[in-house]
């Protein structure tokens, strides 16, 4: 077939100036992509997986112990005392819920804006969202004190004839977070269905095949199905986009609608959303850079992906820096003596100023090295900055919540907060819980959206030039064998043409 005018430049082999960077390196074939990603699930996990998994399970156990201890003893085992009634628990809640936002940003907003590079990272980022929201939900649930009464948050008719106060931002939060979790889970699962079918078709008959079979719903890749599926996927993206912006806005309402100096700020919703995306992307990179090297996904998660995410961190980090400065400026310019005093105590001479400086250094200054391209492509530099951001975002919430309450309106009740061992171990335990879930996800589900990645390769374009029709099927660097059962008749063909 003669190459047309429009695709002749692709046939020439060399990339011309106008070509986009390929999203899958080395012109990999569909078969290679399937093998590489399914191979992670089908083969023994590398040593690194166990090194991370065992401590994660232990930490999850410690977390469970801390919660049991709390239930058995009372919320007093946490360090909060008047006037600091919200401390590490709410800090951790906001921290974890913020982490989730990057997943939805990648899966929904980048989908609507046709950012095709999202395909390599969206699955893992969405999984991260779900696990982060699970961690987040634990803290307010236990913070209510009597966790067995937590069903009072749900609008269920009850014998007391008492209904929830729908005018309270705390109840808005219940709806926002539970909707966020549910919609994220639906979105994630819908994206998984075709890939579960891939795993199903590669499995030998048995319990695994049955489980993948049930969860892939009998998917047969029919175009009449894809047509509805793509519409459904786009609808979910369009629904998730305002949802993700609303969730952290509603979280910020917990503070912004109060009359506490330092909390009562109209800048909070956009400031929280930017911070959430900022911290979330740092966590995506923290997870994906090791995953990429442990599982050899260098052709799928390319330097371009990391570069793009580093740019988003730089942008949102700078927005956050602007918000910090503007908050301080408004405290000065707003001529409210209580607000100004709160900020003086927060940043200049209060008891916890070092948290404020740590926050500023980690969130505003550390990402600025991403202006340099060399730093965005240097994985070690990226990892170091992400660690700073992960820590910095926790400090940010601590500064907003705790340092504000420590110096409340009545100087007579001022008290400095000290975390107890339960506070600290519970928080560390949630990291174990998060990691354990993520590692189990790596173990049982495809970490990269197989179908979507195939869809962005040149060979997936029905109007592409001849040279792209078949990608390159090379030997797999990880040595994953294609299971014989995937070939017709169960027999592997003698040789495949390169």
């Amino acid at each position, binding site marked *: 077939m003669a190459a047309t005018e429009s695709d002749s430049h692709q046939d020439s082999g060399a990339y011309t100036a106008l070509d986009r960077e390929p999203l899958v390196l080395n012109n990999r074939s569909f078969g290679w992509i399937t093998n590489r990603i399914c191979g992670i699930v089908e083969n023994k996990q590398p040593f690194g997986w166990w090194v991370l998994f065992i401590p994660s399970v232990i930490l999850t156990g410690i977390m469970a112990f801390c919660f049991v201890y709390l239930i058995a003893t009372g919320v007093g085992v946490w360090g909060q005392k008047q006037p600091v009634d919200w401390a590490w628990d709410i800090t951790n809640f906001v921290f974890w819920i913020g982490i989730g936002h990057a997943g939805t940003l990648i899966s929904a907003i980048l989908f609507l804006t046709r950012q095709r590079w999202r395909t390599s990272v969206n699955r893992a980022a969405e999984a991260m969202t779900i696990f982060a929201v699970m961690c987040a939900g634990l803290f307010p649930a236990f913070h209510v004190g009597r966790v067995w009464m937590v069903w009072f948050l749900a609008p269920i008719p009850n014998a007391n004839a008492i209904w929830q106060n729908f*005018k309270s931002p705390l109840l808005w939060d219940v709806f926002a977070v539970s909707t966020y979790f549910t919609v994220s889970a639906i979105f994630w699962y819908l994206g998984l269905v075709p890939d579960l079918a891939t795993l199903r078709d590669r499995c030998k008959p048995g319990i695994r095949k049955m489980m993948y079979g049930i969860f892939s719903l009998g998917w047969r890749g029919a*175009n009449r199905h894809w047509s509805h599926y793509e519409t459904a996927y786009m*609808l979910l993206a369009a629904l998730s986009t305002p949802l993700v912006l609303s969730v952290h806005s509603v979280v910020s309402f917990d503070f912004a609608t109060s009359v506490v100096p330092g909390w009562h700020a109209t800048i909070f919703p956009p400031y929280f959303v930017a911070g959430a995306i900022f911290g979330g992307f740092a966590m995506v990179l923290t997870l994906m850079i090791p995953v990429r090297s442990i599982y050899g996904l260098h052709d799928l998660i390319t330097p371009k992906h990391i570069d793009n995410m580093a740019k988003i961190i730089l942008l949102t980090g700078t927005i956050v820096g602007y918000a910090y400065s503007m908050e301080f400026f408004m405290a000065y310019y707003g001529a409210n003596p209580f607000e100004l005093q709160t900020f003086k105590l927060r940043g200049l001479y209060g008891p916890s100023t070092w948290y404020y400086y740590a926050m500023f250094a980690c969130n505003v200054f550390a990402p600025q090295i991403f202006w340099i391209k060399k730093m965005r492509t240097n994985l070690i530099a990226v990892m170091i900055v992400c660690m700073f951001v992960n820590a910095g975002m926790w400090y940010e919430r601590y500064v907003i919540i705790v340092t504000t309450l420590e110096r409340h309106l009545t100087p007579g009740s001022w008290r400095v907060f000290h975390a107890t061992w339960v506070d600290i171990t519970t928080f560390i335990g949630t990291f174990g819980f998060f990691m354990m879930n993520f590692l189990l996800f790596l173990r049982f589900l495809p970490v990269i959206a197989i179908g979507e990645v195939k869809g962005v390769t040149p060979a997936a374009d029905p109007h592409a030039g001849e040279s792209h029709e078949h990608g390159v099927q090379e030997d797999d660097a990880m040595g994953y064998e294609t299971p014989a059962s995937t070939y017709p008749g169960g027999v592997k063909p003698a040789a495949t043409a390169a």
Partner: protein
Amino acid sequence: MSTTLKRVHGYLAEFDSVKDLYHAAEQVRDQGFQRWDCHSPFPIHGLDAAMGVKRSTLPWFVFFGGMAGTSTAFIMQSLTQSTFWSDMGMGFLEKIAETYPTVVQAKPTGFVTLPAFFPVMFELTILFSAFTVLFGLLAFIGLPRWNHPLFTSKRFEKFSDDGFFMSIEARDPKFSQEGTKSLLEKIGAKNIELVEDDI
């Protein structure tokens, strides 16, 4: 499991590439077939037009699902936490709900309270819409189902890896065992297979 009686489900044919499938689909569409489909590991851009598949009407259902969420949230909140319905002269509705507003810090419970209900109305709109997307999609595509005749073909397993297939069902009025096979051969299909189903 297998019985001696078999029913012809239709033809399953394989194509070498996205491009071949795309151009083959255009020709099958032009022949006027109705009950046929293409199977691919990922959605192929433009194949809907090549197959003559109409745009999904799912968004309409989702719109009404979303509106149901908005109204549910509004009714739930206004009935239980405001005097809105009594103010509108429909106090009997609040009697049915058997509840009274919780007054916090002497904040009003009348018409002016309504803006406080917007966040929950928004969230439930999204929640109900998302459920409508999920269940609407499953209803539209007729899944989940336990099995399908196409899965009797061993070769068909490749559809989720790198295989591009076309299936033409015997139920199609234009189907004929000989004619359809020669059509598939003409449009470049490989490995044409007659799929049979246990009765």
